[in-house]
């Protein structure tokens, strides 16, 4: 019988299988090798018996009894603890229970970080937009009064007007905002 190209007939290999079989199931070829070997090897049969009897061997003769005083002491402690608990006002008990509640700290911290990050991301473009809008209004006023619109913007406006037909005053203002922010 072969396992990973290694012969599985020696006592050492078979004993390793006997040990492994105590917590996991062997494959069919390993089972066959084990059976074939055990049929002819009394030493490994004895080894298998010893391994199988380990729980019994470890427990037998170990007639330990817990000290009866331990139970008494523990029950007394439990009684004391519960009577102390009764004396605490209900509101304090509520806050105490909140404190002792198990919170998954890492997960909460991660969620908090994500929330802060999202808030930052969300608030940032808005502020930029507002700033750009204010700037655009300022420029628009300036341009409209001085009639000094740069030729580049003029040509942009012309192209967009041609594409969209006539634009209202409101549309014109939005367009101006767009052009200024993209400058």
């Amino acid at each position, binding site marked *: 019988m072969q396992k990973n190209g290694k012969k599985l007939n020696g006592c050492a290999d078979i004993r390793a299988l006997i040990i492994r079989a*105590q917590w996991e199931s062997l494959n069919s070829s390993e089972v066959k090798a084990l059976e074939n070997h055990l049929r002819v*090897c009394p030493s490994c049969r004895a080894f298998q018996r010893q391994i199988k009897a380990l729980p019994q061997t470890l427990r037998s003769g*170990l007639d*330990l009894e817990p000290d009866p005083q*331990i*139970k008494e002491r*523990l029950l007394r402690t439990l009684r004391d603890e519960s009577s102390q608990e009764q004396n605490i006002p209900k509101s304090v008990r509520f806050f105490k229970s909140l404190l002792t509640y198990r919170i998954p700290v890492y997960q909460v911290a991660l969620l908090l970080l994500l929330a802060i990050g999202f808030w930052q991301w969300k608030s940032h473009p808005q502020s930029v937009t507002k700033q750009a809008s204010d700037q655009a209004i300022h420029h628009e006023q300036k341009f409209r009064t001085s009639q000094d619109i740069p030729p580049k913007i003029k040509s942009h406006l012309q192209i967009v007007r041609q594409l969209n037909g006539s634009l209202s005053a409101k549309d014109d203002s939005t367009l101006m905002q767009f052009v200024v922010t993209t400058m």
Partner: protein
Amino acid sequence: MFFAASRIHAADEQLMKRIKKGEHQAFEILYDRYARQMLRYFYRMLHGDEALAQDFLQELFLKVIQRPETFDHSRTFKTWLYTIAYNMCKNEYRRQTVRKNYLAANDIISQSEEKPAETSLDQQYFRKRLMSELEKLSTDQRAAFLLRFQEELSITQISAIMDCPAGTVKSRLFYACKKLSHLLKEFNPKGDG
């Protein structure tokens, strides 16, 4: 009568909920269910020191009483209890207060394990030697070995208790068994294969 019986057969996790409410009876049931096996576990892990094992038993159940809120309901009570016990033993090793005199430990084992109804002298001697050789394993190997073979817990339970992957538990068990079989080879002469 019916209610009394149902209380006794209540699941450990249900009993823990009752302990949180301060029910003494629930604690008594849990204590009676686990005290003996936890004492046995401590005894083996603490090199056969019975007095220390009794102290540890008390400390363990005191934790159950005083900090029941630390019980994670996604796990079984048994696994949780063994996890606390395992960590207590590990801390004890770290504090270096555990007696490391194997001979002394052997004396304790031989005194407490004498049993007149023993079936064979060979078995008695084998067990004594096994206990003695167990001391030569590393803490993690010994813990894995005892949890598997003495307490008969599954690999999944042991990996949860020892907070390591199942593969690590298997490896620890394998090398513990291999080392023990080598140390105890006189009980099992090597075959000709």
